[in-house]
């Protein structure tokens, strides 16, 4: 039984194709991760699933209802947590929950009880009567998720819910999402943090430039990288000349440098580590860290696109 079936979805804005003919299926009670860099088309995809925007072509079934014909039925099934903090900052957390609860049809004691329950779930019971303005970024994100839970959704859609928050709040959010899924809620979780998706999700889809370039279970997707390891070196500066030199002596390895991080993808990284460091030592810049990882989603993305996810 599928909670979501996306069939040949395309969304264009003028000449820009935000989502390009993607198809995927998400099972009921799955925790599905949609991974991709900024601008990959993740937000457009979930906005379409949420019935907020109409597709240019294709269709999406949510709980068996088409977004083209049964949008209102779909809205009753879903809870949406947008990428931005979609709250009224001058109202308290409880007032925000009450407002959206009223729109969901809750009244009186039921509304109050539900608001308490949500505040408990997101760990803000004792701060519920404070204005959102006074919250930290992490607390805002947590109450942002809380509003998405006001209607006990069958499908919870979270769009990059951990952007720009402290590790404590991030962990809290990840644990909350995992618990909700364990209680039977289907979750779509979009992120460009591969470690979050790896930690949370049972199934994963990777998007890039509007296309779905890989999908399957976590193991299936990781296998696409062909057991390649990822070497990550933090180095403040690397000239194009040295990067070219590295690429020349190690042609079978995929390399990428950006934001002070050199990423090298390939098999048996340890065997060429000395060669790489020799060339990097000729740079005046200092190496601040070095890490070799087993095949992961980052290496899959690098393998498939030749670019790092953070790009």
């Amino acid at each position, binding site marked *: 039984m599928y909670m979501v079936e996306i069939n040949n979805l395309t969304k264009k804005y003028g000449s820009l194709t935000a989502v390009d003919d993607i198809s995927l299926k998400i099972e009921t009670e799955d925790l599905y991760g949609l991974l991709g860099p900024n601008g990959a088309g993740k937000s457009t995809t979930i906005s379409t699933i949420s*019935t907020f*925007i109409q597709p240019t072509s294709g269709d999406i079934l949510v709980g068996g209802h088409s977004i083209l014909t049964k949008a209102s039925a779909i809205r009753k099934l879903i809870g949406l947590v947008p990428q931005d903090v*979609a*709250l009224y900052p001058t*109202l308290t957390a409880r007032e925000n929950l009450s*407002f959206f609860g009223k*729109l969901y049809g809750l009244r009186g004691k039921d509304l109050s009880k539900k608001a308490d329950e949500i505040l408990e779930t997101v760990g803000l019971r004792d701060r519920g009567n404070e204005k959102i303005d006074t919250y930290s970024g992490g607390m805002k994100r947590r109450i942002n998720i809380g509003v998405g839970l006001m209607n006990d959704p069958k499908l919870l859609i979270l769009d990059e819910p951990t952007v720009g928050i402290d590790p404590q709040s991030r962990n809290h959010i990840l644990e909350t999402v995992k618990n909700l899924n364990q209680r039977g809620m289907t979750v779509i979780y979009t992120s460009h943090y591969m470690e979050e998706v790896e930690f949370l999700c049972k199934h994963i889809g990777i998007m890039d430039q509007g296309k779905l370039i890989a999908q399957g279970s976590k193991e299936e997707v990781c296998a696409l990288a062909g057991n390649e390891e990822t070497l990550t070196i933090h180095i403040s500066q690397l000239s194009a000349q040295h990067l070219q030199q590295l690429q020349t002596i190690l042609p079978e390895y995929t390399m990428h440098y950006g934001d002070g991080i050199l990423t090298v993808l390939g098999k048996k990284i340890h065997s060429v580590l000395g060669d790489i460091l020799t060339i990097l030592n000729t740079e005046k810049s200092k190496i601040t860290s070095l890490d070799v990882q087993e095949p992961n989603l980052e290496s899959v993305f690098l393998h498939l696109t030749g670019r790092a996810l953070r790009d």
Partner: protein
Amino acid sequence: MHGLFIALNDLKITLKDRKVTTILLLMPILLITVLGSALSSAFTPDTMTDLHQITIAIVEGEAANLNDLERFIPMDQMEEIETSLSDLDINRIVKEEVLQSEDIKSLVSYEVLDHHTALSKLQAKDVAGIVYLPDQFANRYIMGNKSEIKIVTNTDSQIDQMILDAVFRSFSDQLSLPRIAVSVVQEENIKEGVGTFSFSKTGEDIQSLVSDKGISLEFLQKTEAGKQLISSKEYYTSAVAVMFMLFSAGYGLMNMLHDRDHYTLMRQLIAGASKFQMLLGKFLYTLFLCVIQLSILFAYGYIAMGIRLPSDLLAFMILICAASFAMAGLSVLLCGIVKNQRGAVIFQGLIINILSLLGGSFIPIEVMPKIFRPLADLTPNGRASRAFVHLIEGGQWSSISSSVLMLFGFGTLCLLIGVCVFRPAER
């Protein structure tokens, strides 16, 4: 119910926001106080002379007829009277001595017309007023009967009326003509050719002036039932309150843009609010806000500034609702057509100022160039402001019914267009 919840939520946010309440309530209170007090002299005839030149129509009175006097005056005195008749020719006196005097010539120009032509020109607002000179003034003067100069103005132009009033007061005073009575007729509905008038004695200051000089001058002011001149405080309470209603409409738009930009609109949609309910929310929000705003501002005017409240309170409340309805409709229209903050800034920074200027919120419509004056009635704020002024002057429902209809019509039209063009998902 969704629309009501959205409206109440927005209202709660607005009323909690000190910056917004400052703009919507404290700013107009400040402006009413400053403009109402500082420009009070601009509402007196003396100051108007620097600002205004008006054209009036003169309807001449019937010339004197000595035959009617033969029964009462000895024949030997008739010749003497005949020679002095030209001194008692009021048509000549008014035209040549009054209206051609250096001071008044720069202020008032005139045309001599018959009654019907003069009335047509007044209706078309080609002349500011009609001065009816009395028939057989000399006969009446000699026989000791009172005469009246009647002045008809359109109440749309209070300043014109005051200028004429001042000129003919001065005339009656200077000539010490005990038999001239100046009547000022305010004819609110003159364009329809309808008007019920009552006569009330006013102008006690003139009475006292005249009695000091031993002159028996009867000053009659013909007014539409209960109508009185308006003060600058009353004018600016109406004008400024209505101007700031436009800002309330702007805040309806700002709330919608916030909802768009911060995805709370998306959340409302997913929570089951339809496009119509979202707009209804903004409509009700602006409506409530405007009603609250007008009530507070007029209450302030009444309590702190000493303005009069309209005697027809029902009409006043209906007008508040109509003006608020118009602004609420405007707010929905803006929600439909403005998609970003830039559009909102243009509305709040430019369009509101233009509408306010045309509507007479900055300077009274009467002192604006003639070409702009008709535009005031085409703006919802101008129409509302003038209707409030009419009511404060003592006007009744009949004097504002067309404005109320216009405001409801404007609001409905804006609402319909807004609903048609609004797309919640567009950014």
